[in-house]
């Protein structure tokens, strides 16, 4: 751990030496990046002109409310074992009072809900319980969807079905860039997503929108190297895609992962919670795997008359947090009605959620606009 820290300090010195005159807004689109930035205390260590904005980087946060609701209803069926990544267990859906509003509450009400850390565990659980239906609620970005596709490509056990809520990251960034106000001057592109899909996926940011960008890993040294790159590009009036995670995010990405994804999944228009439908931003099981789609196997029909179906909870600003339009602590609920103990919006639930990350690293009061104010808002 010593070498990266030394490198990180050197990058920090280089960044401090840059002749920044005005505010530069740098967005990251990966919960892992935001977590590393916050855990390392980077914001407080950087010059005040630099704003680091958490953008759409949390798959749990954008998983549609309807999918969470469907998972809860499935979990309450006595014949079903519902498995999901731990983060999904506490995401609340909109339900009438006295009904379980999260998978965790469904579990407390008697549902068989099991947290898992890898898709292989879903197959293992299905194999261990051949007499029961196992439903894998798979929410995630490309990095998590790839192993789900791998599982589907190997052949799924007959009693396992998938409630797939997979999303692609770049279309959300493209949608932001095509909107009236993108809200950022430079982009830190996601490291793991690039490792799977290839860093080239992110070229459009510089090529089509003239925005400096760099792929980063998750240690401070890689993040600061990427930050230095985009700041220099910005100062020099240039824009290209740099790769500061070249050892892992190789050209072309992971061809095996891409092949199994192509073989088993279609790219479809998809709904992002609180944001709406983004074209070609989601994954769905191919037609020949339809019998493994939990939506079909259990004939899940969205209850069109369910109150507040698909909506954000009242007052919750998670959607604008996800889009980087506001900082977590600019939401009126942040730290007041909404805390990790009693989360209202998904961004306060997931370890990848910006609200949860900010709260757990000690940011308390509201309205941070610059790094200085950000620092002042701490404790």
């Amino acid at each position: 751990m010593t070498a990266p820290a030394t490198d990180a300090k050197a990058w920090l010195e280089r960044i401090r030496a840059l002749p920044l005159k005005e505010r530069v807004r740098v967005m990251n689109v990966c919960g892992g990046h935001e977590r590393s930035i916050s855990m390392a205390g980077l914001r407080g260590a950087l010059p005040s002109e630099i704003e680091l904005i958490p953008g759409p980087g949390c798959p749990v946060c954008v998983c549609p409310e309807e999918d969470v609701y469907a998972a809860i209803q499935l979990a309450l069926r006595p014949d079903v074992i519902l498995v999901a990544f731990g983060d999904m267990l506490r995401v609340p859906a909109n339900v009438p009072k006295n009904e379980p509003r999260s998978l965790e509450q469904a579990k407390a009400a008697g549902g068989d809900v099991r947290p898992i850390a890898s898709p292989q565990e879903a197959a293992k659980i299905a194999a261990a319980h051949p007499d029961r239906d196992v439903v894998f609620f798979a929410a995630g970005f490309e990095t998590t969807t790839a192993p789900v596709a791998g599982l589907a490509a190997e052949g799924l056990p007959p009693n396992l079905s998938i409630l797939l809520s997979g999303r692609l990251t770049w279309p959300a960034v493209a949608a932001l860039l095509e909107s009236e106000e993108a809200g950022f001057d430079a982009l830190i592109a996601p490291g793991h997503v690039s490792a799977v899909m290839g860093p080239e996926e992110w070229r459009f940011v510089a090529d089509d929108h003239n925005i400096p960008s760099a792929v980063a890993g998750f240690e401070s040294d890689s993040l600061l190297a990427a930050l230095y790159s985009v700041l220099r590009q910005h100062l020099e009036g240039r824009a290209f895609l740099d790769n500061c995670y070249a050892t892992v995010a190789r050209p072309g990405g992971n061809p095996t992962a891409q092949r199994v994804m192509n073989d088993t999944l279609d790219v479809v228009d998809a709904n992002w919670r609180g944001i709406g439908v983004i074209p070609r931003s989601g994954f769905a099981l191919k037609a020949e795997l339809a019998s493994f789609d939990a939506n079909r196997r259990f004939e899940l029909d969205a209850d069109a008359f369910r109150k507040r179906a698909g909506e954000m909870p009242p007052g919750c600003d998670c959607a604008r947090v996800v889009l980087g339009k506001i900082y977590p602590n600019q939401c009126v609920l942040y730290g007041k009605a909404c805390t990790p103990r009693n989360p209202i919006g998904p961004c306060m639930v997931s370890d990848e959620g910006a609200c949860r990350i900010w709260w757990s690293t000690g940011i308390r009061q509201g309205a941070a606009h610059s790094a200085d104010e950000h620092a002042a808002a701490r404790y």
Partner: protein
Amino acid sequence: MMDDRHVSLAHGNGGRFMREMIEEVFVSHLGDSALDVHLDAAPLTLPPDKVPCITTDAFTVQPLEFPGGDIGSLAVNGTVNDLAVSGAAPQALTLNAIIEEGLEMACLIRIVKSLAEAARIAGVHIVAGDTKVVPRGHGGGLYLATTGLGLRDATWRLGFDRIRGGDVLLVSGPIGDHGIAVMLAREAFDLSGPVRSDCAAVTPLALPLAKIDGVRFMRDPTRGGLATVAHEIAAATSLNVRLSETEIPVRDPVRSVCEMLGYDPYYLACEGRVVAIAAPDAADEVLKLWRSLPDGEGAARIGVLSQGAGHVVLETEIGGERLLEELEDDPLPRIC
């Protein structure tokens, strides 16, 4: 016919089976001359110039056996360590065993042997005990509870009230080993790794600090880990605890598992470490002493107490900082 390879309800009925289990499993393997099972209460003789200290703890760890320890060694060391960090030399333990019907007798014997060995190493006698058997499904195989009596020098004062701004925080070795060892032993999340619990008596680390003036306070960072001890100190003193990320010792495999699952090692349990607070001019002496001892090679100075509002602040590797929050719920594995 009764299956003698598993504990049955009859082993808790007060009759022959219970007597046999107590004699053949507990008395014979504990091998403690201070244990007289024919007495209802054990008399103790206490020296008049010492302060008797008493503590109690219950143990419900799952699985019962894990790399580096088991519920038996844990039941001894957990209670011994609470005495040791209070400055008391452990003398006597009582032992309660609540056994679930169906527990393998061989497993019970292994655990009792391990418990006896831990007591021998810690220099503490098991002077009284009780066993109960609960029906299948009513317990996690085996629960243990121990109460410990120790003796402290009347002149040695330790406590939150002695802590001052500028004092130094030290830890006797790497943190988080126990938490990760037990998690890996559960075989959850398809992970495995070469991590052993640090479960051990800290008496040899804690009691010699009596010689050093300026040692203010000690605690063993068990449930909730180092961050929780730091919070207890911050809350009791209204001082800020400033921890230095680069100084806190964490073994590489522990760090790897933490990175994979999104855990913060600062919240993971230790079962054989001491956190001490010492005056600035005494800190080096504590460090030198610890590093000369078998379980103290990894000792480190990890932080300071500063004026503030009772926050726990982590100074990060790159010179930034963040707050370590009070632990809320069990950490869940993260999604990617």
